[in-house]
């Protein structure tokens, strides 16, 4: 029976190593999801949120998109989808996502700087509503 204990102990060591990787991996890659309203409220309440990686889902404000084809410099404003109030500018360096458009819902990932601009590392166009036909679409 003693031998079996040794195997259990060895398995526990393995599980422990995986657990360690788990926890450190979580710490390094946690990203908070906010709406623009929440982001503005959180950063106003706690300046340290400026340094945290966040994902923000919002709507591209029509008329604010500026994209330079040569330098791939993209700037636009994002507004809270539900309330229409919380709004901030986004800066992104890179090719325009294919389905990016004014008025479209996007998820930007990056940091909201002290200067009040969002430095995005990725801009994703939201796909959830895109694949599924919505009944209202036919009426438009």
């Amino acid at each position, binding site marked *: 029976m003693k031998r079996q204990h040794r195997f259990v102990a060895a398995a526990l060591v393995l599980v422990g190593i995986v657990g360690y*990787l788990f926890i450190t991996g979580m710490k390094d890659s946690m990203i908070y999801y906010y709406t623009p309203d929440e982001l503005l409220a959180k950063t106003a309440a706690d300046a340290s949120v400026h340094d945290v990686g966040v994902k923000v889902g919002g709507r591209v404000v029509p008329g604010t998109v500026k994209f330079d084809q040569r330098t791939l410099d993209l700037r636009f404003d994002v507004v809270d989808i539900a309330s229409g109030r919380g709004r901030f500018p986004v800066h992104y360096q890179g090719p325009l996502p*294919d389905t990016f458009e004014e008025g479209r819902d996007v998820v930007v990932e990056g940091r909201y700087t002290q200067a009040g601009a969002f430095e995005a590392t990725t801009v994703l166009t939201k796909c959830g509503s895109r694949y599924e036909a919505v009944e209202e679409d036919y009426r438009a």
Partner: protein
Amino acid sequence: MTQIGEVALWVALLLALWGTATAFVGGRAGRGDLVLSAERSVYGVLGLLLVASGAIIAAFLGNEYRYQYVAGYSNRELSVFYKITGLWAGQTGSLVFWALLLALFSALAVFQNRERNREFMPYVTGTLLVILAFFLVVVLSASNPFKMLEFTPADGRGLNPQLQNYWMTIHPPTLYLGFTAFTIPFAFAVSALLSGRLDTRWITTTRRWTLLAWFFLTNGIIFGMMWAYVELGWGGWWFWDPVENASLLPWLTGTAFLHSVMIQEKRGMLKVWNVFLIMATFLLSILATFLTRSGLIESVHSFAQNLTIAYIFLGFLTTLIVVSAGLVWWRRDRLSSDAQVESFLSREAAFLTNNLVFVAAMFAVLWGTLFPLISEGFTGQKIATGPPFFDRVNIPLGLLLLALMGIGPVIAWRRASPRNLRRNFVGPLLAGTAVGLGMLAGGVRHTYAILTFALGAFTLATVAIEFWKGTRARARIEGEGALVALVHLVGRNRRRYGGYIVHVGLVVGFMGIAGKAFYVEETLALRPGESMTIASPFGHTYRLTYQDMSWYTATNMTKLVASVAVEKDGRRAGMLTAEKRTYRQREEVASEVGIRRAWNEDLYLILAGIDDPNGVVQGTNPRPVATFRVLVNALVPWIWTGGFIMAVGTLIALWPGREEPRPSPARAARPAAAGRPREREPELVEA
């Protein structure tokens, strides 16, 4: 006429419920007539689902846009091919398709066992019909493909451009074939628990089903990677996206199951564990279907936000977990182990570690995938984990697997003698060390990449030695030529050597994945005539010259095509084109990348931006500035090659026909001389 499909679905549901009742009652009471009726219900459900699926396809081909589903995924301009595949383009159709495939496999399993395994079949049939009934309930209550709009639109919305790709038409069916095929071994496991026949019979009789499911699932995942690689235009092939993860979960437990059943067959151990693994694999297949189709977790290919479906699926999953756990608990005393692990240096220990690693990886992926939901449920704050989490946990686990792939198949059962270890591992260890040191000397400093290649070389060497030893022995004893001996060796021990070939494929695939350490990327805006250069990690240099921009109109899109001339080390190496497509129906833009494939790397060209696309189409600006993103993706072709080798290996292991029932003459001739009681491969029971 197409409305007949909806009628068929209702009748199928009634028939499935009837069959469930007769199967369980008939099995319990030993009433052969009831069991027969249940088995016929399976064929009936298959027929009815064929009618329903045919009706959906007919509605697509007939442009019947009063059906919400057809209107949402098709339009008049869509080609016939994509109209037929419309059956699985969206949520509602794909659930019918899932049920159809399950009915097909169920009917095959019932037919195959019409005169065998009679003590299992009532409960197998009942279990399969419960699952079919569940899917039919979901379809009819929450996701009816025959739901009508209040009016008939003149045209449909068309199919999402990113889905108009051949990989995308073959990827979902392949995955679904894998998911549904795992239901058969699951049903046999449930039946074994219910009937109390808990020897290895349920495992051996479903061995081919498990391999078949694994074959489809593996290929389905690889097809999905290929789709992402050519269609998403990011230069990557795996994004730890929730839907990708969902398909990986049953693969991980299914692969663990394929290995752990060997321990039960040879040593009578791990009985509970095997039941647990196949149940987990099936439950994770259901979870994967559910995650893909409910859009619960934000993902690039989430389809819908349909909470009714979410609740039904969660209810079903919970019931399945409770019932499965209850069954195992009820039969716990019949599931005790016949033997124990004796030494760390044994095949049992290697297989156990392999299983732990697979299950740990499964939990990591599951946790990372569900974490946003969990955190939102408990704290109200949605928090996601990114790819770094998955990489951090899974890369070390993957490397451990790579090493185990070399150790497990050749180390002795029970307890390896020093002689066994020396004979089998000295050469491979030298090979691995040589490759690792060679890479270090060559200036490679990426730890994971070096480890992948070193451990890969170690594993490949063990496999090569196995092939060589087997062939040599056979050639000597049978007096055959080397090639003939090799063919016979593999042919007579297909499960074993097929498995080795799968391992080789996986090693090659892992090396391809490790190539990611060497990717190079450049982004530059060019005028026609201007060039950019990019250096490959293999030492040569590509020079890309932007030649011109042209535009075309196709039936449902306008294409802008940039032509780029490629030179490799100053020598002409063909043209690449990259496109921006604007789809008329949805006014959506999609990129088509240009890929120049070599045996060791891909030159991957993305048309990232066009300065004045309207000017090109109107003819006012024929020479626009274009922005290109160019990547040299080292070793990506190895991933696909590895996948192909794995598929070949699986087919060899899977191919019907008898294997040699006796121990091979090579091993029978010198059992004592080898000094290690290596058990022969058990004869393959016809599945």
